[in-house]
């Protein structure tokens, strides 16, 4: 890469929060850790933006950790490489962007939900989690993915458990997540081990080179382990069982952050492995893609049905996330540029949507102390800003035009129409429509409660959420609208990213 002064750019998104994290622990409880974390997230966000721009202009960027790149004449780098193309640049920007909004948002929510003395620890964990998510995205080394995955996961377990002050179930949820997450990660490691045994390399691009045209049981088994492992982290139906409680009982800010980023990063990993690593020549890919169609559709409906019946808004949104992951899987399963682009677009858009929604719920939890439906009755009168923010982002979730959700749905349907799978395209599109409708039902339930239900008579008057929370939430809400009109960032980048991924997957272009 030839941008003077920016040679070290790819490493910064990981290094900055990683270095900042332990420093946070040294700070006094209160504003300082929060301000520091926020600052870090902003700086990181700027870095990722620069990175995105660089990748957009100059093409994929490779960065060899410690200068241990590929020796002259050798295809594989020796050390760990960071490899940034548009796909992960987009996800990186997304994660950093979400963080830069959620971290400032977190202040009041954290103050109320977490023991004051623990705040430095909280922000430390948050930054580590942030690091992990960025690292997973940015790295080009399969084993390094595991390391970062566990970095983010471990801190996530801790963060979720911090919700225990509000509800002790956070502890069990966290514990369950820990067990499941560890199993998932271990599966992943086994898979990587098998691949390593088969190819002798861990670098993803090199793995792809080695695996081209090769299929044997070891690789197949590796594939199975990796997909199961990532699927578990991704909360792909039927491996989603840990997610609802984890998202539900986590502190509000954490719910918002995780829902918007964690699973999204996993989707990226799946994409990376399926197309960049295994590729279309890999015999089993097609079976997997077909399985993803089914899993995606099942997830879309099953989780939506559950969400419809939930009485806790956070749980409802958690299940909704599972359903939305179904859309992403569906997009991937088409195995076309449009499909993968649609998936990436939905990754981006859904992050905005869910962040806004969970932030809104966080405001309600802060003021009313509950995320049960009952608390939302008449909310439009009591906390109009929060309520309307929730409604708009809810509409976005449904896929109503003028919000980003519509773009996702549009691209997904467009992709479905252009794809030949064993299910007729029209049927898939109609199913997408039908599942959007289920989203409309549960969001409609929420909107109905907020807009048309009377305020409980014995309710005490409440204030709106603090300005900071409202503003940050509304930044997300407005982003939901802004990115409807400004689709260059999503559609443009995602399409090119998908193109690159698929080119790699098809065995030409892309890689080096």
């Amino acid at each position, binding site marked *: 890469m030839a941008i003077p002064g920016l040679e070290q750019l790819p490493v910064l998104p990981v290094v900055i929060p990683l270095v900042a994290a332990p420093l946070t622990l040294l700070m006094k409880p209160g504003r300082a850790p929060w301000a520091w974390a926020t600052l870090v997230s902003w700086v990181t966000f700027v870095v990722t933006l620069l990175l995105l721009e660089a990748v957009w202009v100059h093409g994929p960027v490779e960065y060899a950790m410690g200068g241990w790149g590929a020796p002259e004449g050798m295809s594989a780098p020796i050390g760990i490489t960071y490899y940034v193309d548009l796909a992960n640049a987009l996800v990186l920007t997304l994660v950093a962007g979400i963080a830069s909004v959620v971290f400032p948002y977190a202040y009041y929510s954290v103050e109320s939900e977490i023991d004051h003395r623990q705040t430095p620890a909280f922000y430390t964990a948050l930054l580590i989690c942030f690091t992990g998510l960025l690292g997973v995205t940015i790295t080009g080394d399969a084993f390094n993915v595991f390391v970062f995955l566990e970095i983010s996961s471990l801190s996530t377990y801790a963060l979720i458990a911090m919700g225990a002050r509000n509800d002790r179930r956070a502890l069990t949820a966290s514990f369950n997540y820990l067990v499941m997450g560890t199993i998932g990660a271990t599966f992943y490691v086994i898979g990587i081990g098998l691949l390593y045994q088969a190819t002798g390399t861990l670098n993803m691009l090199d793995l792809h080179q080695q695996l081209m045209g090769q299929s044997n049981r070891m690789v197949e088994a590796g594939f199975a382990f990796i997909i199961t492992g990532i699927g578990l982290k991704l909360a792909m139906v039927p491996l989603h069982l840990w997610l609802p409680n984890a998202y539900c009982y986590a502190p509000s800010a954490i719910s918002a952050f995780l829902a918007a980023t964690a699973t999204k990063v996993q989707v990226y990993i799946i994409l990376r492995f399926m197309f960049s690593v295994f590729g279309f020549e890999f015999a089993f890919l097609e079976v997997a893609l077909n399985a993803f169609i089914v899993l995606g559709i099942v997830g879309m409906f099953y989780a939506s049905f559950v969400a419809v019946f939930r009485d806790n808004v956070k749980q409802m949104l958690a299940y909704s996330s599972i359903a939305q992951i179904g859309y992403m899987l569906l997009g991937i399963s088409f195995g076309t540029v449009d499909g993968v682009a649609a998936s990436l677009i939905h990754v981006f858009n859904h992050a905005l949507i869910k962040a806004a929604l969970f932030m809104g719920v966080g405001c309600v939890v802060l003021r009313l102390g509950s995320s049960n439906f009952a608390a939302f009755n008449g909310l439009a009168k009591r906390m109009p800003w929060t309520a309307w923010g929730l409604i708009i982002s809810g509409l976005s979730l*449904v*896929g*109503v*035009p*003028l919000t980003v959700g519509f*773009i996702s*749905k*549009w*691209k997904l*349907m*467009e992709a479905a*129409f*252009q794809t030949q799978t064993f299910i007729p395209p*029209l049927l898939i*599109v*109609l199913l*997408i*429509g*039908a599942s*959007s*409708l289920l989203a*409309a039902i549960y969001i*409609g339930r929420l909107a109905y409660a907020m*807009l*048309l239900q009377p305020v409980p008579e014995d309710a005490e008057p409440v204030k709106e959420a603090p300005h900071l929370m409202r503003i940050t939430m509304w930044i997300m809400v407005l982003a939901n609208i802004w990115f*409807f*009109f400004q*689709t260059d960032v999503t*559609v443009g980048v995602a399409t090119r990213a998908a193109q690159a991924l698929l080119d790699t997957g098809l065995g030409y272009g892309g890689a080096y």
Partner: protein
Amino acid sequence: MLSLLSPEMAMYISLILPIFGLFGIMLADKVPNVREGVTLVTGAIVFYMAIIVAVAVSGGARPGFEVAEIIPGLAIRFEVEPLGAMFGVIASGLWIVNSLYSIGYMRGTHEKHQTRFYMCFAIAIMSALGIAYSANLLTFFIFYEVLTLSTFPLVTHKENEAARNGGRIYLGILLGTSIGLLLPAIVLTYVLTGTTEFTLGGLFAGGAEGPILMATSPVIFVLLALFAFGIGKAALMPIHPWLPAAMVAPTPVSAFLHAVAVVKAGVFGILKVVIFIFGVDFLAEGWAADFFLWLAAFSVLAASAIAMTQDNLKSRLAFSTVSQLSYVTIGAMLATSMGVAGGATQIAAHALGKMTLFMCAGAIYVAHHKSLISEMRGLGRKMPFTFIAFIIGAFSIIGLPPMAGSWPKFMLMWSAADAGHQLVFVVLIASSLMNIVYLLTPMLRGFMDPMSSGLKFDKDCLAEAPLFCLVPAWITAIGTIVLFFYIEPLIAFLEPVTGAIGFGG
């Protein structure tokens, strides 16, 4: 004055002003007179703007502007053509009438949440105008959804169990069909053609380069099915139940939204799709439309039959609306220029006629709290003005001169003759005859029969509804007669899009 505002500016104003009106209404929450005043002033201005636009359109202009291009080929854009201008004028004009009526009704029945009521109405009218002025399917879809959502609080206005149930069905079917079917249809259109713009002559017909698909392709059928059922507001059987379900709303809502804005938005959409997406001639070439023609014909008759059995006046009118809306669908699916012109005329004629009927039904409710036909016997003698207005409206629906409703029937028959579907005659004639039975009988019983037992009057004098209820009903009733005589200008106005000026047109 007309020249002071460009039609584009008028479009901006008419799309944005209702929002300001909304805030005005909100601010005037506690002062009903000011609140209703704001509604009326907004309505008057919007109506005026719609007329400016229509005048410009009749002069051959196609004012329009683009808000944003989302994805290449997919933009939020407005452009007015005669059909839209007509719908805009109807919707905004009748909004004023309806606002007057609402004052009488809402105060007369002491409804709660009147501010919310007027606010939702303002959004609904804005979205109706947005639908009218949309230049492509995406924009149409957006405002279509806004219309659905903004009318939901109106439907559930009474906030009792029945209202909630009705609202659930209303929203379920309308949202379900639009997201589940209409959106896929739009996406498929986009996938096939790379755009969703309403193109004169038909997007699929393809203009000079020739059609994108064979007119006989099954894809055309699938698309037409998605559109015909996806635009659920057109209430084509079997997706009509939302319309009777919506009758739980206060009568002004039924009168305006479910006789004018909402349902007309639906059939307007069907017409737009047939004219601008498929292309009338293109559709006529294939076989796809025939199925929907007969489905619409079935709707006409079956809905009439169901209407006959309804004792609740409003639900009888609702099924009548289902039946009458299918006229427009028939017109569209006949796929001739006279057919679409007939459909377009039916939009205008039925809007006036059915609104009269609903407002009269509401007037009866305001005056005597009667909604069942069996309770209205002999009432006509007490409120003759209401009942006579109803009868005029009914005559229009039946299709008797000199009420506007007769022309669409004639045009549809003409079109059926053109298309060679003589069986449509039978349907239209049977529909008229059934209309007589179920629309006129209750009203005449109001004059002829002895007073229902539930009605007690101390004094032997008239017991009419408030003037605010009565005058609007008479305005629209007279409107049907006026439109009868002014049909030719309307046809000429629509000619650029329908291609129908009559024989040889």
